[in-house]
């Protein structure tokens, strides 16, 4: 085979995909932006840090250990390329930035396991130093053994909220409060669905009771009003479920409202996207095997919808089996393969039910827009405020998200809307009385992340033109 099977992302999905491919004698190319395997969930600490997996990953230590062993086992059977940023993708090739050089790679099959980042919504004061995403707060701890501050508030919603709080408190950080925007009633209502993965549910309940036992202040159904502070965050003003205003002192805040998929590569290879009302996002369409609408392109893991680590591993295996079938290397008539596929898909369905429960238990807040002030920055790269966006929508009768970007520059900066795009879309829907689906999806253009001119420049091609 001239062109390799390419797997993008060395997290749980990417590694399991490679393991499955290697098991059938295929040597995949595994591209990863990080220096080490693991993705965000199993981000590795620097080599001279000596914490054990139990300290780093808690209940997931065994899963991490297992993945590590798998990675080392297949290490020689794959073309693993760390520190490789895929900055462009087309229907037959990708462009990679690696150690100050860019190179083109053609693929025969592509498995995209691009992961996710924090979903954040702005509030007055959110750009003050000391305010972090929840995922970022967790990474500071996992990667560098640092807490984001000495008096930390963790706020927002999603299962990550309690996990990060637990990890911070067990590592000895001072967590002054854990504030959930979702009401307790939402969790109660979601219980039947959450019972389909009792182990996962028990873990979550363990975190909560562990934190309560240690006297960590816990509140539910709260609303973030604003962060206080001049040069950095000094406190958080919130409204509790009964409408009472509280002011909590802190020197750091980690906040987030679940995760959002990184879908840029799927977009660049021209996958069809559909609106997913549960995740409040446009996601690349895929079938149970991860197959997209584009020939040879498969998706696995949180990059194509948030499903968590176990699902990511399974989806990676499943996508690899589909690729192998397409390559004629494994037969869909082979009873072993059939059984494996059935097991994976049935487990994915159970997880999917559990995820639906999680979305019910930790719903995306709806009233955060009410707290925005005209001078609240929404797009940090271009410093576009809520007032700017309102004015543009009003002056130019804007109804569509790409149009809003063109006319207001919101989402036009270094992050290209990866961080602010979903918040801007929610704001546009709110201002125009449309649904999130109606305001549309921010189109992606290369590069996926900023790339330096000197690296991208092709001097040989330039001479040709002279």
């Amino acid at each position: 085979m001239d062109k390799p099977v390419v797997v993008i992302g060395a997290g749980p999905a990417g590694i399991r995909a490679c393991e499955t491919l290697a098991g059938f004698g295929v040597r995949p190319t595994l591209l990863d932006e990080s220096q080490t395997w693991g993705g965000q969930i199993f981000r590795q600490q620097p080599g001279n840090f000596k914490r054990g997996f139990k300290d780093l990953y808690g209940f997931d230590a065994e899963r991490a250990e297992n993945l590590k062993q798998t990675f080392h086992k297949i290490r020689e059977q794959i073309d693993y390329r760390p520190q490789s940023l895929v900055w462009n993708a087309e229907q037959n090739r990708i462009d990679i930035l690696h150690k100050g050089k860019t190179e083109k790679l053609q693929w025969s099959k592509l498995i995209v396991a691009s992961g996710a980042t924090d979903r954040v919504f702005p509030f007055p004061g959110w750009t003050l130093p000391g305010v972090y995403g929840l995922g970022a707060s967790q990474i500071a701890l996992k990667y560098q053994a640092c807490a984001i501050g000495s008096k930390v508030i963790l706020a927002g919603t999603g299962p990550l909220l309690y996990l990060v709080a637990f990890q911070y408190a067990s590592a000895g950080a001072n967590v002054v409060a854990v504030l959930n925007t979702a009401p307790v009633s939402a969790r109660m209502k979601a219980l039947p669905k959450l019972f389909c993965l009792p182990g996962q549910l028990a873990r979550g309940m363990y975190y909560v009771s562990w934190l309560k036992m240690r006297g960590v202040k816990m509140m539910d159904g709260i609303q973030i009003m604003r962060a206080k502070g001049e040069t950095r965050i000094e406190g958080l003003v919130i409204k509790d479920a009964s409408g009472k205003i509280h002011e909590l002192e802190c020197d750091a805040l980690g906040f987030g409202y679940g995760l959002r998929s990184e879908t840029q590569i799927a977009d660049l290879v021209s996958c069809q996207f559909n609106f997913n009302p549960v995740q409040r996002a446009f996601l690349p369409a895929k079938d149970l095997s991860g197959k997209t609408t584009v020939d040879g392109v498969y998706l696995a893991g949180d990059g194509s919808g948030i499903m968590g680590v176990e699902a990511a591993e399974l989806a990676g295996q499943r996508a690899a089996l589909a690729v192998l079938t397409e390559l004629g290397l494994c037969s869909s008539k082979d009873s072993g393969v059939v059984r494996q596929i059935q097991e994976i898909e049935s487990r994915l369905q159970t997880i999917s039910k559990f995820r639906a429960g999680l979305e019910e238990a930790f719903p995306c807040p709806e009233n955060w827009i009410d707290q925005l002030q005209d001078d609240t920055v929404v797009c940090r790269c271009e410093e576009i405020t809520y007032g700017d966006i309102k004015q543009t929508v009003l002056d130019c009768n804007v109804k569509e998200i790409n149009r809003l970007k063109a006319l207001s520059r919101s989402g036009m900066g270094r992050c290209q809307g990866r961080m602010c795009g979903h918040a801007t879309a929610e704001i546009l829907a709110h201002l125009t009385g449309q649904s999130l689906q109606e305001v549309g999806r921010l189109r992606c253009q290369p590069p996926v992340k900023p790339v330096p001119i000197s690296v991208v420049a092709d001097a040989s091609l330039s001479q040709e033109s002279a």
Partner: protein
Amino acid sequence: MDDKLFDVIIIGAGIVGSSAALKLLDMGMSVCVIESGASGSRSSGINYGGVRRQGRSLAQMPLTQRAHAIWGRLKQTIGIDGEYVRSGHLKLARSDKDMASLERYRELTADCGLGLELLGREELKKRFPYLGERAVGGSFCPEDGHANPRLVSPGFALAAQKAGAIFLEYTTATGFAYDGKLFQVKVHNSDRPLQSRFLVNCAGAWANKVCEAFGEPVPMDCSHPLMFVTEAVPVFMNVSLGVEGGGVYARQVTRGNCVIGGTQGYALDEYRARPGGDGIRTVVGRALELLPDLQNVQIIRTWSGTEGRLPDREPVIGLSSTTPGLVHGFGFAGAGFQIGPAVGEVLAELVAQGQSTTPIEAFSISRFRS
């Protein structure tokens, strides 16, 4: 809009269609503009943003000068400045042969009012020290400049809307007919055709659909100019740059971002195009040669669009050769932004008076008839 009869239906809300609408309203006509996407969002809104007369053909000189005057009144015309600046446009020569063509161009256009200044290598180094070594000289047009197309082109549309034009955005015209008195235009989202006394075809790369419907197809194809923008860096470039022979052009906005274009993207579908990896790498290489100080600056976005072009790279502007009341203005081959507002005025004159006060003979649709 039931049974509403318009004086004029305009196909395409780019800078040409919208400025024609603005002028027609001014003349007291009722106008409906049909646009398949958002107004000013295709080539008019995503082009490089050069507001340049230098380098245009002699035939375009009267039009480009007329446009120059309109750009001077941009804020009064559309209510926003559109980041328009008369920075000057510097066209560089990379060889003595290229310098000779710049000299020849200056002679040819001596009476046109461009005020071109020729600069030798030393002069160039003194005035524009940030330029790379390749340039041996250049031609400077002091009153040319650049503007932000994603603001200016929708700006013309919004101004026309405020002045009373009906804009049907996200509406595709699917059928055209003329019964000897009135035009009927079918749209995809209504059973009832719209009617008008005049039809103005400003549909850019998609204009041939109208031409074909009235029996005068043109040999038009598409190009997909590729552009990129850098992160903001301290302002160092005080002119809009081009190169004799083409291949790269660059400007810097007051926020500090550099907007640079050259090469071609690829078509995604009938409407959309995207930059490819090779195209990006080539144009970035050329840009670096032109502006070596940019080497450590990051590219934050690339884009492309769909532009109609005719074999002689001149537009079609004028009356239909088959159908009375039909007027064309399209096919600007990547150079319509500056002259767009003047073409709009000319189209309005053609509707109202049947003739233009600016010479446009060279752009007749009949030139493709064998």
